[in-house]
Every structure is written in C-alpha cells, then in structure tokens.
C-alpha cells in the first residue's frame, strides 16, 4: 500500500522527522486560505500516486493569493498520468542550498534491508542508480539488530554529505530506518531532503510504501482511505480481493496462481492474441469467487473472449465448475464466448458438473488458449464488417 505524501508526512511528523508546515486542501478557496496561514512562498502539490509530479505539472511554487488561486485551478481536477487530482498539499517552500536523497528498502537479492544516501537528491533516484550508481552510498542492515548509528554516519560520510550537516542527516536516516522497521515499510524515502542556508535539514517530500502482507499489524495505516485505484475495474477487483491488472488486449484471462496466469497471458500473445487482463483467483477459490471473476472480466468492454485456465492443487475443479455454471446461468445469452480448461484436483468431477451448453471445453492449455484467441479474432472481424 502506498501512502499519499500528506499521509506519509503525518507518520514522519509523529516520528520526529523535520517536515515543512503544510495544510491539505480540496478546493481553490481552501488552497488560498491554507497558503495564507502557512505563509508565502508555498508549494501547491498534487496528492496522487505517481512519480515525477513536478515535471508533469502537478507541483507549483506560488508567491501570492492570485498565483495560489491559479495553481489551485490548474492542478485540482487535472489528470496526472491516469489519476485525477482531488487534493493538494499546500506546503511552506523551503529555501534550500542543497538537496539529498535518503531511503530504506529491502534488498531482495541480499535478503536484507538497505539504507541509502545520495548527495544527488532532487532528481529521479532511479536515474542516478542507473547512470551513476557510485553516487549512492549503501549500507546493508542486519534485520535482527536494526541499524546502528555508526552505519547511518558511515553512509552519510560515504555519500560526501557536508560535515556541518552530516550528524543531522544521519539522524534523519536513523529515524527513517526506524519508521521502515516499525511500520513494515517496503520503501520509505525522502527525496529531496533539503539543506537550508542555516544548515537546517527538512524532509520536503515523503514516500511510504507499506508491505500489504503486514497491514494486520499496522491497523492505523490499514484504515487510511485509499483512492489509489486507476479505474472502476481495478476498484471492483479490490472489492473482490483479486490480483488484477488491466491490459490493452481483448482476450480476458482467468486462472489460479500467479505463475500459471502469467503463462496463460504469454501463450495468448504467443498464439497471436492480445491479453485483456491478468486475473488470479488465488488458491482454494470457491464457487462464488469464480463467479465474481467472470463478472469482473465481463465488465471490461474490451473483452471479446474469455479463457478460464484452472490447474487445481488446493483449488478444486468441482467448485470451479459450479462457479462457472452459477455465473453463466443468469444470462439469457452468454456475453462473450468462454473457453474452459480444467485440470488437477477434482477436475473430472468438475468436467461432469460443467454445463457444456454454456462454455467451450478444451483439454489442454495450448488448445484452450488457441480457441480463445480464435474467438476474439472472429469477434473483431464481425465488428469490423458492421
């Protein structure tokens, strides 16, 4: 789960991290009012889950009420890489002389957390990592001990941070690690961490990504309102609790297990079709969940044909078949042709239960995918000739 900047900064502030004064606003009037109470100059910052907001026009620096009004009008409601901006953070502008990057993440290759500092902050850190990896000082942390203060200092000195502010930056990094650890962060970052002419250190941005699997022990974060879904379909998938990704094609895909579903996508592509989505019903799916999955895929206007690929282990073929029947029997006419391939646990029972009037049955994965691609092709041809 990704927190918005303003949400992350609330968590930062509680942990004693230095952040600029700010207020959240949802209307132009609120922006002007907030700017007045924070004190000009202020930055008006779109609160959406995308990187590179500044470049995309989602952050503006303003000096007075008139500029604040104009910035509010242009940013509120704008579409930023697929997300509509509903809120902005109105934040005191920091008069900085230097920008740093600090972050903590999991190094999956090492199986350990890694704390990072770079004196090249204020730009996309991914670019720095790719082009000049030596500009990022890295310190691996033993997760059993946590980060020792000397490690934070070493990272800061390795990154070439000015001696006058090194101790304060190290302290920010220590706090950041503590937050990452306490809050089950996956990535926790400050970019830029600004250094003022008075040698003050201020976190001008805040990124907090939380491990979804750990939300059970972060109840206050789990309760934070999420408006992170890109579109209605993803919102629906969220409600149903599916792993779902919408794609550009027209062959709807439902399967069990991430690897098998990805393979089904790849095979659709291999046989000349285009996948419309990734939808994993997960392990042990019961009939209702299967019906929900079909409902999801039928809700996507792009879908011309559907392929169901189940290889049961913990999932049972008879349950899957019941779900498919339940979902399809409510239609007078099946919206899109459905190809079903059932294998593994209770697949024979499943094949007996499956209402063969409503679906096309294929024995092999390859056969099912080819049939679904053909179905989609012929649907496109029919539409094209209308």
């Amino acid at each position, binding site marked *: 789960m990704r927190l918005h900047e303003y949400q992350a900064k609330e968590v930062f502030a509680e942990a004693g991290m230095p952040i600029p004064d700010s207020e959240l606003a949802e209307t132009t009037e609120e922006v002007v009012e907030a700017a007045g109470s924070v004190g000009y100059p202020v930055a008006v910052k779109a609160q959406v889950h995308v990187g590179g907001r500044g470049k995309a026009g989602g952050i503006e620096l303003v000096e007075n009420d008139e500029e604040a009004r104009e910035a509010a009008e242009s940013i509120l409601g704008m579409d930023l890489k697929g997300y509509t901006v509903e809120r902005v953070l109105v934040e005191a502008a920091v008069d900085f002389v230097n920008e740093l990057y600090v972050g903590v993440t999991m190094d999956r290759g090492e199986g350990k957390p890694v704390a990072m500092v770079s004196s090249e902050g204020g730009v996309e850190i991914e670019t720095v990592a790719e082009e000049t990896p030596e500009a990022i000082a890295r310190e691996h942390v033993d997760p059993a001990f946590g980060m020792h203060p000397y490690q934070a200092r070493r990272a800061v000195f390795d990154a070439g941070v000015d001696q006058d502010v090194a101790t304060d930056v190290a302290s920010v990094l220590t706090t950041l690690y503590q937050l990452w650890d306490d809050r089950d962060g996956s990535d926790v970052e400050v970019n830029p961490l600004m250094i003022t002419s008075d040698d003050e250190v201020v976190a001008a941005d805040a990124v907090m990504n939380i*491990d979804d699997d750990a939300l059970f022990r972060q109840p206050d974060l789990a309760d934070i309102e999420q408006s992170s879904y890109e579109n209605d379909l993803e919102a629906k998938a969220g409600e149903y609790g599916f792993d779902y*990704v919408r794609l550009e094609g027209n062959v709807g895909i439902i399967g*069990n297990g991430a*690897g098998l579903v990805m393979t089904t996508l790849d095979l659709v592509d291999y046989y000349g079709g285009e996948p419309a989505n990734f939808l994993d019903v997960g392990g042990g799916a019961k009939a209702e969940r299967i019906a929900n999955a079909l409902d999801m895929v039928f809700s996507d206007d792009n879908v011309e044909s559907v392929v169901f690929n189940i290889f049961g282990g913990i999932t049972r073929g008879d349950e899957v078949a019941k779900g498919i029947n339940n979902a399809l029997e409510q239609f007078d006419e099946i919206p899109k042709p459905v190809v079903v391939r059932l294998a593994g646990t209770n697949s024979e029972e499943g094949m007996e239960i499956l209402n063969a009037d409503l679906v096309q049955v294929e024995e092999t994965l*390859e056969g099912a995918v080819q049939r679904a691609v053909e179905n989609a092709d012929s649907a496109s041809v029919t539409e094209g000739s209308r």
Partner: protein
Amino acid sequence: MSVLVDDDTRVVVQGITGGEGKFHTGQMQDYGTNVVAGAVPGRGGEEVEGVPVYDTVDEAVEAEDANASVIFVPPAFAADAVFESLDSDLDLAVAITEGIPTQDMAKVNKRLSEVDTHLIGPNCPGIITPGEAKLGILPGDIFSSGNVGFISRSGTLTYQVVDSLTDRGLGQSTAIGIGGDPIIGTGFTDALSLFEDDPDTDAIVMCGEIGGEDEEQAAAYIDSEMETPVAGFIAGRTAPPGKRMGHAGAIVSGSGTGTAESKIDALNDAGVPVGDTPEEVAENVEDLL
C-alpha cells in the same frame, strides 16, 4: 533417488489442527508420507488423522524422531513457526503459508544463515519425491518417478509443466516449489546445486518468472558450476513494467532488470534452452536426456 525428502523423512506438521493442516495431513498420508507428529501450542495430547499432536516442535522431535516439518500456520504467526523449526535443528522445514510479511522473512533469512536446516518457501506448494513422500499441497497424482529434477517459483505452473513432462514419460526425481516471495529459503542456485550432486538426476527443469534477479544468478551458476543439463521456462513475458502480477516477487521494474527478456537471455547464454510453452519445455528436456 531424490533430494531433501524420501521415504525415510519423518514429518511434523506445524498447524495440524487448522483446516488446511488437517486436510493436507490426510493427503500427505494418502501419498505415503511418514507424518509422525503435529505441533500446535496448547493442543498437545490431541490426535489429528491418527497423528499425535504436541505443544512444541521440540517435543515432537524428541517423542517421534521427526526430522522435517511442514508449516500450515497463518501468516501472522508463520515466521515464528519457522523460527521454532530452525531452533529444533530439523533437516528440512517447508513453509506453505502465503502472505508472510517480508520483514519477518528477512529476520528468518538471517537466522537461516546460522543453522543447517534447509527451508523451502514460504508461499510455495512444497516438495515431492514421486512415489516416496510429499511435503506440502502438491497434487500427487500428476507426478511420476524418474530422473528429472524440477524447480519452480510458482505452484500452479509447477503442475502445468510437470503434467507436460509426465505426459511424455519424463518422470521426476524430486520437484521443489521454491515459492514466489521476494525473500525465500532455498533459491534456484541452492536447489540446482542439490540436484547437481544427486547421481540420479540427469536433467533439471527450472521455471522462473519476472521480478528479482534470481534467474540471472542461477544462469551464472549453471554456466560456471554445473554438468547436469537444465531446461528453462520464464513466465511473464507479456507483463507490463511497473505492475505487480500476483506474486510479491513478480513485478517488473521499469529499468530492464528482472524482465522475462533479461532472464531468458541470461539462461540462453548459459546454454539453457527456454521453452515458449510448457509443451516445448518437455520437448527440450527430451532432447537434453
């Protein structure tokens, strides 16, 4: 022959009183696995599927001489269950549980470096030596005994590709579902080295997926250390960058690492044929043998 499990393996099931634990204990027994004990705190003295339950893994090991565990414990308590099995000095622990927090697994990973136990998983279907024993949730009847070692990050993909192998009469020595999480116990390289040392494994299949760099590391290992031929499969060629596709590990970064292409290239460079379809993987194995 086999790696890690055979018909001498004596299994304790952690979480045996839960729905999944109970069901799969029965399934494992039906397959012929020696399930000798269960371990559930506070439930010592009970019996599940004819198996005695103990309060701790230590007690189970002492009373029943268990040397391996299978963990069906909910995510919030699963890391603790793994720690307990590591502390009991078992040869093997298999964690089936999906959704263990990554930070918990980092701590487990640290402890793992200090003990001799092999950990398989978490978030995996388990391990099976066909005809001898299975530890986990794999459907036993699709496997057959033979000389192909099998390693996969994905459960259902394991079933799919094994089915293609079995269909062609290519039996398996041992199949290991290593799991799709970012931090796992036994990885590709560890599993490959186990099969390399097994005289009765004549070829190996490794099924990988997008995300991380484990397949690239495995390719380097195959290139420099291995005699046994390997056939590969990589899921997620069509995955768009920046999206998480189910598995926590299955996310493509935008920058070119961890993509299907980089993994396939690395494997090809190490002399590993990578099939476009599960059928083609089986054909490739036939050619390697």
